[in-house]
């Protein structure tokens, strides 16, 4: 036993910090390394404007990543977030569009006040989360299958409401405000501020609340969690609904940015959210990961994609690059963690 302790203390990364902090620091190191390399080789990379862009451009993926990270920690997937973005955006537009103003069915909505419309759209998003939770918790269906189904249902609702296109007419001016509003004195959008606030709240939830800590126990061993008196079903339901709600908020913000409900908005975002979580060291083996890690993962992704664009690689490269980045991240993280255990 003593020998074990000595060995782990002496191994090249053995120290007192937790595995999660270790991975987060590691990924910060990787981020700095990648950034330095990119700054050396890519023209105009090391400018304050670009650095600001790197942090702020991915705000929607980071908001989605919060919910996806929490669910991954409990060993569940949520692939429905992209569909929920499309659905919420389209529905919020549909609810707020003026009623009976035109011959064109896509120009007529329900004419609800802005606030009511947004709240209703967010409730629909939470409904998708509830559906996910019902199937996963009550019917014990694997989350990957359920959320693929609800992804199609949510996307399908967006397509039905917009007849496969978009709704962008007869909208009140107030609809386009929140997505385009900048923080006074800067060009940073209010959405970025929302993202930062949400990340901080998520960090507090994950580290300092009983609910957050139980999430890790559920992921590590859900049977043990159940036997020790944790209401696993309720926790998972809450997390699924939170994830969909975050996707819904993102959907409203993105729709407001373009002042249009576009049915294809958010396609593939579920994959990006998963990518940033995995880059940040969240493990699907369960019970491991952190929102801060995911945040760093998102920055790594934006450095990689931005550097690739700067090197004039065609946009077709992004799929391959993401695949390689995630692969390297998963393999190296699991290798280093196994070394760390000694």
């Amino acid at each position: 036993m003593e020998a074990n302790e000595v060995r782990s203390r002496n191994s090249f990364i053995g120290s007192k910090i937790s595995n999660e902090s270790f991975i987060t620091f590691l990924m910060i190191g990787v981020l700095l390394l990648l950034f330095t390399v990119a700054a050396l080789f890519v023209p105009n990379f090391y400018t304050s404007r670009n650095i600001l862009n790197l942090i702020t451009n991915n705000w929607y993926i980071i908001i989605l990543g919060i919910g996806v990270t929490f669910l991954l920690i409990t060993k569940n997937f949520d692939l429905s977030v992209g569909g929920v973005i499309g659905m919420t955006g389209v529905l919020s537009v549909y609810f707020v569009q003026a009623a009976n103003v035109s011959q064109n069915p896509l120009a007529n909505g329900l004419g609800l006040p802005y606030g009511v419309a947004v709240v209703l759209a967010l409730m629909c998003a939470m409904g998708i989360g509830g559906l996910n939770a019902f199937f996963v918790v009550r019917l014990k269906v694997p989350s990957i299958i359920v959320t693929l189904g609800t992804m199609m249902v949510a996307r399908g609702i967006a397509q039905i409401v917009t007849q496969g296109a978009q709704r962008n007419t007869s909208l009140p001016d107030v609809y386009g405000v929140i997505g385009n509003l900048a923080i006074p004195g800067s060009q940073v959008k209010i959405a970025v501020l929302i993202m930062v606030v949400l990340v901080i709240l998520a960090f507090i939830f994950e580290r300092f609340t009983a609910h957050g800590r139980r999430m890790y126990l559920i992921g590590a061993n859900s049977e043990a969690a159940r036997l020790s008196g944790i209401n696993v079903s309720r926790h998972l339901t809450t997390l699924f609904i939170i994830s969909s709600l975050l996707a819904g908020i993102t959907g409203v913000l993105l729709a407001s940015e373009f002042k249009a409900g576009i049915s294809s908005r958010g396609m593939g975002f579920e994959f990006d959210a998963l990518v940033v979580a995995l880059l940040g060291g969240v493990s699907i083996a369960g019970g491991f990961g952190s929102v801060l890690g995911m945040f760093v993962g998102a920055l790594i992704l934006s450095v990689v994609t931005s550097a690739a664009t700067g090197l004039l690689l065609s946009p077709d490269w992004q799929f391959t690059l993401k695949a390689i980045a995630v692969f390297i991240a998963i393999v190296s993280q699991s290798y280093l963690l196994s070394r760390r255990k000694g």
Partner: protein
Amino acid sequence: MEPTIQVESGIEKKMLVGQPNWSETVRETVKNFYIYFVLVLVIVVFSVARLNEVAFFERGHFLNPDNIINLLRIAVPIITLSGAFTYLMIAQYIDLSVGSAMALSAVLFALMILNGFSFIAAAILTIIAGIVMGSLNGFLVMKLKITPVIATLVTLSLYKGIALLIVPDGLSAIKGSADQPMPAWINNYARQDVLFGLPAAFYVAIVLIVALVVIQRKTILGKYTAAIGGNRTAADLSGINAVAIVWLLYIIVGVSAALAGMARASYMSMGDPLSGDGMELASIIAVLLGGTRFAGGAGAVEKTIIGAIIVICMTVGMLTIIPAYWQTFVMGSVLISAVVINRLLVQD
């Protein structure tokens, strides 16, 4: 601790009791035959739906022979894919990269035909590409122990990325141009009438399915697959080499994806890097409709094929009665209904 013997399957229970348990029998019958009922239901609905516009068997009717032949032609890729997919689901694994693997195969096949390869050479090389793609999936999942969903999402992105990179800038797909026309015979494989109006690709798919059914029922591979999915620990302890078996299953899926990609490229006369989008969803729907347990351990290839035909009937038939933009919603609902049916009937 003393070993306890548990009687699990319905058959053994019946043997113990000595007389048939009627509710159990009814349940078993429904479980075994509901998929055929669903197929008949779907066909009846689409046959009756537009009777006021077209009469039975007339041109444009769902049961018109030309329509059925066309439907079966379109069904070739999904039939080819979902058969092998069933094996993986039985073993409690999953491959989300099938659509991308199929698209990459289609791109490679079209590229080779465009550059003067003979059909046989292009087909063999495409199948080899399929073997490589399947092996990579197997390697990530079984050797590097990455969760199947994540590993195959990574390869989904990778194969699709490679397919997009192969297609030259400014083009959306590998297709013939004025100075380099696509040979017209690329169509023959998936469109030319060989027997009963159906093309060679269809019969290749049928041969593949028959082979998979026979392998599942008569060989040790089928038994081992079910054993791995039913109880992994027990399978390991009884000396089954799960790593090799599942790896082999991934390779079989890769080859199926290559065959499906060839059929798609031949049908469309081009290699479209996005042509495989959604095929993984269609395969999952087909497999679950076909009553394969999503917890692994049980399932049948032939029922998956019925499930695949239902999926194709829905996608094709739906277009005749409701606008195209309903498609995603309906397929999502079908997937969720399949999960519910599966949950109610198949799971214990």
